[in-house]
């Protein structure tokens, strides 16, 4: 026993190397975290100190005015937060059901249409109609423009996720359980709902988290399909503010004087505060869910 331990110590890197590696990772970690900290500091700096000294890590004066502003504009912010939350929850639930159902069906070895469905999942992985065709279909044929469905439906299923589910069910759900349930007269829907789902929690967590972050972070669908301000999500709100600033900066003759332009825009602190409101839930939650993202990809890597 002692010998093994000694060997292990021998097999470690040298102390100076260890210190060097730690140093490298401390620097990288800081680079990854600091921008968020910085944006947070800007959001609690007073307007006067930003105007005078620019953005600073140690502001000369603190202020909660940006958050007070957001609080006073509750209607816009709460509405946007509500849209983001609604899209995230509805999208994740629907997406998980659609993805796992097909994944389960594909994992049944004796299913007659397995070949057909495998192609249905496989073809989109290597070929797609492209952004323009998708836009035209969603906007003109399915009439999704300015509906909440435009934010949910197009992102529900991805072939990659279906393959993860299929591989998971194939490797972890024993055939014998399903066969015996069938002998007891259970329908496949019952088997899926009452047997497969309870024993497959990890894959549901993985797919669910993939989708949660995809929906929460989406601004692209909004920018294509949503012009109605009632349907603006938090990300879209941030994106719209940004776009308006660009537009006015590029078109100085848009009918506003510089002063009006400055007044019409949320202050820098407020913009950074919105970014903080978006990131904070993620920053608090992701350390607990991180592992599912890794298992998801490693399951997906197994050839099924």
């Amino acid at each position, binding site marked *: 026993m002692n010998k093994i331990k000694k060997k292990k110590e021998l097999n470690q890197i040298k102390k100076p190397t260890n210190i060097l590696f*730690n140093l490298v990772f401390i620097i990288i970690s800081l680079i990854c975290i600091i921008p968020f900290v*910085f944006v947070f500091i800007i959001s609690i700096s007073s307007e006067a100190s930003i105007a005078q000294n620019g953005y600073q890590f140690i502001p000369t004066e603190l202020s909660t005015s940006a958050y007070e502003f957001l609080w006073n504009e509750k209607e816009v912010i709460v509405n946007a937060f509500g849209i983001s939350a609604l899209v995230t929850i509805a999208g994740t639930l629907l997406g998980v059901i659609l993805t796992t159902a097909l994944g389960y069906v594909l994992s049944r070895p*004796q299913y007659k249409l397995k070949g057909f469905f495998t192609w249905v999942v496989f073809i989109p992985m290597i070929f797609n*109609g492209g952004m*323009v065709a998708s836009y035209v279909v969603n906007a003109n044929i399915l009439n999704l423009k300015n509906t909440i469905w435009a934010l949910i439906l197009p992102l529900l299923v991805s072939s990659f996720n279906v393959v993860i589910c299929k591989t998971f069910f194939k490797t972890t759900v024993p055939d014998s359980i399903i066969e015996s349930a069938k002998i007891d007269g259970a329908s496949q829907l019952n088997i899926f709902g009452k047997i497969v789902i309870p024993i497959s929690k990890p894959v549901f967590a993985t797919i669910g988290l993939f989708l949660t972050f995809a929906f929460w972070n989406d601004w692209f669908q909004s920018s294509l399909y949503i012009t109605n301000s009632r349907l603006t999500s938090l*990300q879209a709100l941030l*994106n719209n503010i940004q776009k308006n600033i660009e537009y006015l900066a590029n078109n100085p003759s848009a009918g506003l004087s510089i002063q009006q332009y400055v007044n019409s825009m949320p202050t820098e602190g407020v913009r950074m505060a919105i970014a903080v409101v978006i990131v904070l839930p993620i920053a608090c939650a992701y350390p607990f869910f991180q592992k599912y993202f890794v298992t998801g990809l*490693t399951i997906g890597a197994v050839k099924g």
Partner: protein
Amino acid sequence: MQDKVKNVKDDVNKKVKTKRKKWHRDDTELTLLALPTLIWYLLFSFLPMFGVLIAFKRYQIFPGKSFLYNLIHSEWVGFDNFQYLIKSNSLFVLLRNTIGYNLVFILLGIVISVSLAIMISLIYSKRKSKAYQTAMFFPHFLSWVVVSYFVFSFLSYDKGILNSILEAFGKEPIQWYMEAKYWPLILLFMNLWKTVGYSTVVYLASITGIDPSLYEAAVVDGASKWEQVKSITLPSLKPIVIMMFILNAGRIFYSDFGLFYQVTRGVPASLYDVASTIDTYVYNALLTSPIGMTSAATVFQSVACCITILLANWIVKKIDDDYAII
């Protein structure tokens, strides 16, 4: 004993298989279970595939008619839209940027992430290693819109911290969003910033899965740590590296739209040469230009990508069948 059980199982399976040639109640139930997802695929994946027809038509809008009517009654123009796209001169810049950035991103991404994964696996303290991983994973969970605000806090002309630092050293401040020459580096940095943590953790998961007895045997043979990395760790990582490579190579004609569009704040004219890709071009053209030419660009993109992924997979298959993903 176990073998016997297995044999019996196989027999049963065979029997079931031979028995089940006809359509079974099971098949009906499974089809019903898969039906909603099938409908989704038809509407959102396969219907757009027919949308590629737009690229071969001079799309016309007949007032009061539906989109399908317009599409069917528009005139066929063959490859005119594609020729127009090629003649417009923008294609060269778009292709160069899209493919060039992707190549650098893929290669540097793999080299850096694999190195970091190996380094992090060698650190003594497992708790510290966990903490670093969590910190490095953070950018993966942010949207590019939010990240563009992060970047702005550093690069803003009058308020950004970089210009404050430059001024503190007595240098002239820089109009970051106007100067094209800095952007290849900024875009590369931001891409790595957002993706390296995630891929590092993925590679690390593979490293921790390596059989420890291999290393023990190497120690007995007197191999140094560096030799162990070279002849045990790196070869074990080969399958996952190849898989990541094929997946990324398959998207070489697509750019990370958010990176190029949001971080540059909408690809201003001054940065067009260094930051415009096929996707930013299509996005900007989607609502303004004739739809045929834009569509031609995306069809080109889809077809080129389809060919690349099959080609990459074919090459990998030639080298070693086990590593191919298809």
